C-alpha cells in the first residue's frame, strides 16, 4: 500500500475543453521513498504537486480517478479536512526562497504559525520547538534568527527556513519543487544534503521536482520523466539512467553536458514542447522524436510496462534483457 497514489490526474485551466496541463497522470509514492520528477519547463511537474496540495485556484480544474494520500482521498475531503493534512502530513518547499517567505513577519512567527495550526503549540513550547527546527535545518545562531525578517536572510538561509516550516508538522511526504534552482551553486549541494538527511532521519517520502539529472542519479530511488503533461517513463533510477526506454528520457540524458564530453556541441532535441493549439493527435513527442514511425503519428501510446520501466512508447529503446 503506497503512501501516495495518483490515478488519471488531469489539470486544466479554463473549462473542461481546455488542453490539459497535466494529462492522465498516474503516480505512486511509497513510504520513505525518494521520487524525482524531471522534465522540461512547462511539462506539468509543479502543477501536479500543486494539485495534490490543493493549491490550484480558479480557473484551474483538477480531476482524478484517485488522489489518495495516506489512505484518504484528497478529492473527496472538504476544504477544512484537507487543510488538516496540507502543511502537516504533506508539505511543500518552493522554488524561490526569497519570495516564498512573507516579508512582513519574522522567521519565528512564520514557523510558529505552523506549530500552532497543526500541533496546537503556543507560547514557550512553540518557541522552543521553532528553535529546535531552526537548529535541525542547520541555521547558525538559530536563537537570533527567530527574530530576523526574511529580507535579512540570504537565499540559502531563507530556503532552510522554508524547509523548517515544511518539516514542522513532521510530514510523511515532503514535496520539494526545484528547491535549489534559485540558489548559488555552492549552496545547492548543501540544501540537497540537508533535504536528504532530513528525509532519512524522519523517514519521510520525498518528491523532488528538478531539472538536475545529476542530483536525481545521486539521490532518487525512482524517477518519473514528464513531457507535455504526461508521465512518459517511470522507473528505478539506475535502470532508467542506464537503459532508458523512452526516446525522450534518452534525449534528456544525452543533454547532460558530461555526456557530450569532447563533442563540439551539446546534444539537444530539436523543436519545443507542443503548446495548447498544436498538440499532435498521436504520441506527443512524435514531431520531435528521432525514431518516429507512422503509428506514432496516428495513435497515442499508453504508459505500459517495458523491460526495465513503465514507458509511454510503441517502439521502446534498450529492450534487451541483460
Amino acid at each position, binding site marked *: 500500500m503506497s503512501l501516495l497514489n495518483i490515478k488519471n490526474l488531469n489539470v486544466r485551466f479554463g473549462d473542461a475543453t481546455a488542453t490539459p496541463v497535466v494529462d492522465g497522470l498516474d503516480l505512486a509514492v511509497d513510504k520513505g521513498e525518494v521520487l524525482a520528477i524531471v522534465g522540461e519547463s512547462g511539462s506539468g511537474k509543479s502543477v501536479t504537486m500543486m494539485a495534490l*496540495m*490543493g*493549491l490550484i485556484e480558479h480557473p484551474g480544474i483538477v480531476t482524478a480517478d484517485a488522489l489518495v494520500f495516506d489512505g484518504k482521498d484528497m478529492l473527496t475531503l472538504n*476544504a477544512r479536512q*484537507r*487543510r*488538516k*493534512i*496540507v*502543511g*502537516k502530513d504533506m*508539505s*511543500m518547499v*518552493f522554488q*524561490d526562497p526569497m*519570495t*516564498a*517567505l*512573507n*516579508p*512582513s*513577519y519574522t522567521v519565528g512567527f512564520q514557523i510558529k*504559525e*505552523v506549530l500552532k*495550526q*497543526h500541533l496546537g503549540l503556543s507560547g514557550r513550547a512553540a518557541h522552543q520547538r521553532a528553535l529546535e527546527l531552526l537548529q535541525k535545518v542547520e541555521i547558525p545562531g538559530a536563537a537570533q534568527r527567530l527574530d530576523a*525578517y526574511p*529580507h*535579512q536572510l540570504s537565499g540559502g538561509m531563507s530556503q532552510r527556513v*522554508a524547509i523548517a*516550516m515544511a518539516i514542522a508538522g513532521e510530514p510523511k511526504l515532503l514535496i520539494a519543487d526545484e528547491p535549489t534552482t534559485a540558489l548559488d551553486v555552492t549552496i545547492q549541494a548543501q540544501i540537497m544534503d540537508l533535504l536528504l538527511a532530513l528525509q532519512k532521519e524522519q523517514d519521510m517520502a520525498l518528491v523532488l521536482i528538478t531539472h538536475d539529472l545529476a542530483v536525481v542519479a545521486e539521490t532518487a530511488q525512482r524517477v518519473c520523466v514528464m513531457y507535455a503533461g504526461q508521465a512518459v517513463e517511470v522507473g528505478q533510477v539506475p535502470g532508467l539512467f542506464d537503459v532508458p526506454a523512452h526516446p525522450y528520457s534518452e534525449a534528456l540524458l544525452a543533454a547532460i553536458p558530461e555526456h557530450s564530453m569532447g563533442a563540439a556541441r551539446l546534444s539537444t532535441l530539436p523543436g519545443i514542447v507542443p503548446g495548447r493549439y498544436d498538440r499532435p493527435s498521436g504520441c506527443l513527442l512524435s514531431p520531435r522524436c528521432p525514431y518516429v514511425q507512422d503509428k506514432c503519428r496516428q495513435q497515442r501510446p499508453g504508459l505500459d510496462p517495458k523491460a526495465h520501466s513503465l514507458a509511454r512508447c510503441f517502439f521502446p529503446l534498450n529492450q534487451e534483457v541483460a
Partner: protein
Amino acid sequence: MFSFIARRVGLLIPTFFGITLLTFALIRLIPGDPVEVMMGERRVDPEMHAQAMERLGLNKPLYAQYIDYVGKLAHGDLGESLRTRTSVWSEFTSLFPATLELSIAALIFAGILGLLAGVIAALKRGSLFDHGVMGISLAGYSMPIFWWGLILIMFFSVSLGWTPVSGRIDLLYDIPPKTGFMLIDTLLSDEEGSFMDALRHLILPAIVLGTIPLAVIARMTRSSMLEVLREDYVRTARAKGLSPARVVFVHGLRNALIPVLTVFGLQVGTLLAGAVLTETIFSWPGIGKWLIEAIGARDYPVVQNGILLIACLVILVNFVVDILYGFANPRIRHQR
C-alpha cells in the same frame, strides 16, 4: 533613520516660505480690501479708507508688508483677525477640534468601508460585486463635494427627515466645551439625548467628506490586494494549511496595506480641502467655514496664517505616515 528625518526637516524650510508667499499673494490678488468689505458696499469715504488702511499697515508697499508678516511669524506671532480682533491662533485652536472630529469620523467611515470593499472586490475579482464597487467608487471620486452634499441633505434631511440639516448639535442643548469634540463633550455633560443628537449631526457631513477618500482607499486596496494575492508567500501560507481568512488577512492584507497607508496619508490633504466645502454646506463650525468667511471678509491674517497652519498639519501628518510606513514595512525600518 536620523538622516532621513533630517533631510525631511530640511525640506520643510523652503516649503514654508513657499506657502507664506503663495497665501500672501493669492489673498491680495482678489479684488477689494478688508476696509472696503467692512465699510459695506456703498461708496467709501476715501479719507476714512486711507486712515483705516494705514492703521492696518496695508498702505505700505507689498514687499514691506510681506517682510512685516514673515518677521512676525518668525517670532511666533500669527497676528489677529481684522474682524474679531482675537488672535488667529486662539480662533484656530477653538475651531479646529470641530474639523478634526469631522475628519476623523470621515476617515473612519472611509477607512473601514474602503478596506472592506477593496478586499472583497479583490477576492471576488471580476464578479458583479467587484464591478459594482469599482463603478461606484469611480463615481464617488468624480462627484463634486458640494453637489453630493446638497443631494444627501435633500434626500435624508429634507425628504426623509432622518438627519438634521446643519450644525453640530441642536440648539436645545447647552454643552460646555471641554475637549472641543462634540461627541465626547456630550458624553461628559448630563444633557440627556445630546450624544445621539450630536451623532446624528455628524453622520451626513462625515459621509460627504469621506466619499472621495473612500473611493480612493477602496480602489487602492483592491489593486494592492490583487497584487499581493499573487505573491509566492501567499501560496506558502496556503501550503501551510492555514484557513482562507488567515491567508487573506494576516498574510495578504498586512502586505497590501503598505501602499494603502501612503494613500491614506495623502488623503488627509484632500480631506482638509474637502472640509472647506463640507463645512460650508453643513454650517459646521470648523476651520473650513472659518477660512471661507475670512476670504469673504478679506481678513488677511486669518487667511494667510490659517492656511499656513493647515499646511503644517498636512506636512506633519504625512511625516507621521512616513514613519508609520517604516513600522508597517520591516524592509524600510532596517534601512539606514
